[in-house]
């Protein structure tokens, strides 16, 4: 399998002279995979996604998309290739869900161009896919945390990326929406999408991930096929608390005391 995204010897810190958040990190994300990144709070998971996006620049090392450095791509081309579902996002005005999701079409439009009927159709489909169709014309600021997270997901889907970056996408979701998200990701991956997500929920990772990355102290301490990395020893070492992995009805679940 070829890597769609590669981090090479990446070192990054916020501001010059500060401690490095990521220190010489190398990682390949395989095309068509679902890679879950797990690790303690503040370990640099979100930072890694922002570096993948090209928004943050590394102190040293480089990020390659399809083997080419991110900097060699025009901005709009990157927007067509990758989409980010952030953890939270402030929206200052009462945009409707549809207006908000329609912004995803920006990478496909020239700077002075407006979204057309085809863009609206794509946005509608994405809204429907995440189950927000009944709220299509509601103001985004009146939605609950979970509904808003789904709107962010819809926006990312309407961007039609090959690589979907998700930063703790299930934090605000109830069980039903979590299940819907898991099915949605599986469906998209079956249609050729690659997914890189951070999460604090091993069960969610267990449900969708084909690959797993465990991070600690700014470095990758284990990565590879999900089954090889998702072990009691690895998780205990990363989080510093004893955890046990049990199998229930063929599914792996994490137990802790």
């Amino acid at each position, binding site marked *: 399998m070829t890597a769609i995204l590669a981090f090479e010897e990446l070192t990054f810190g916020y501001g010059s002279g500060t401690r490095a958040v990521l220190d010489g990190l190398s990682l390949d994300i395989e095309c068509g995979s679902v890679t879950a990144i797990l690790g303690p709070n503040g370990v640099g998971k979100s930072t890694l996604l922002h570096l993948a996006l090209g928004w943050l620049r590394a102190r040293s090392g480089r990020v390659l998309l399809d083997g080419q450095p991110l900097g060699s791509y025009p*901005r709009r081309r990157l927007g*067509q290739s990758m989409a*980010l579902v952030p953890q939270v996002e402030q929206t200052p005005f009462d945009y409707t869900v549809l207006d908000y999701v329609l*912004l995803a079409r920006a*990478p496909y439009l020239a700077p002075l161009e407006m979204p057309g009927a085809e863009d609206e159709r794509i946005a509608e489909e994405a809204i429907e896919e995440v189950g927000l169709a009944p709220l299509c014309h509601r103001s985004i*600021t009146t939605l609950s945390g979970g509904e808003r997270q789904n709107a962010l997901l819809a926006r990312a889907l309407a961007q039609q990326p090959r690589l979907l970056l998700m930063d703790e996408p299930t934090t605000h979701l109830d069980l039903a929406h979590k299940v819907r998200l898991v099915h949605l990701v599986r469906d998209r991956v079956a249609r050729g999408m690659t997914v890189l997500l951070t999460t604090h929920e091993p069960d969610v990772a267990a449900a969708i991930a084909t690959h797993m990355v465990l991070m600690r102290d700014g470095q990758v301490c284990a990565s590879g096929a999900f089954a090889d990395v998702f072990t009691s020893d690895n998780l205990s070492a990363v989080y510093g608390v004893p955890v046990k992995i049990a199998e229930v009805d063929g599914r792996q679940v994490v137990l802790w005391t």
Partner: protein
Amino acid sequence: MSRSTSAASVRPALGWRAASARRKLALIAALLMVVVALSLFVGRYPSPGFMSLDRLATDDLAQRLVFDLRLPRILTALALGMSLAAAGAVFQQIFANPLVDPGFLGVSQGAAFGASLAIIFFGSVAWIVQASAAIFAVAALALTYLLAQRARFGGSVIRLVLAGIAVSAFFSAGVGGLKYLADPMTQLQEITFWLLGGLQSITWMQFWSIAPAVSISLFVIYRMRWRLNLLSLDDATAFSLGATPARERALLLGVSVAATAAVVSVCGMVGWLGLIVPHIARRIFGADARYSVPGALLIGGVFGVLCDDIARTLFAGEIPIGILTSLIGAVFFILIFMTYGHVNEQR
């Protein structure tokens, strides 16, 4: 619900929304045209109130009054309202804050300082006052921008806000100093009247001197209006959606300040329009800048022309337009916030 039926149930609503926005825009555009046309006949000649068509057709003085004095003044009032409203909409979107106006970033105080300086040191020659106000308005923006680039705190928006506050304070101190130096019998009065705003001295020459900057700026804002939705989101998100947030924001702020500096240079300080009109537009058209920006342009035009009509007609002496816009703006501001549909707990 099947996929196709629910998608179909969304689609007609979309068409309805755009059609409804276009209908409202057409209605306000018609209102603006009526206001502009009627304003030509409103004034204090030959007596306070409306001039008849007969008199315009037969009276030489009436013709000169309407076409040489009222028309350029009305068009400048139109440019004033449209520019402040459009610039206000841009500032509010870009700073993701509905409480900012085009005077933000030191622009208003810079213009006030420039005008005061010219009144004291260059004998209040009209074109020098205008040029000085415009130059210092743009200089204030440049200073704010440079300071923001050197600031080592917060994101790009918060740095601009902080730098704008500092630059405003700096020029505000300068205006205070100039007022203190001014001759209280002549110069101080003139500075005070300039700061209150007014269009009494507008001629065709002044209108044509601001027309290029205003029309180019408004054209750019109008064409880039959908991008404003994108630029109201945080930097990383706008970036992930293919935008170049810093460059696009700089362009839109630049043209907004150019339009503001142009109208303020000939009309003096006119507050509140830039703050209140974008709110009214969002109330009527929703937050989507595709419709709220053209809405703000038209409503701003109506406001500008009506306020100037009142300023020149109500009393024998002119009422400074800044007093009217502040008064009317404050009333609308209170009305809007007392009648909002819901409370947004987010910020």
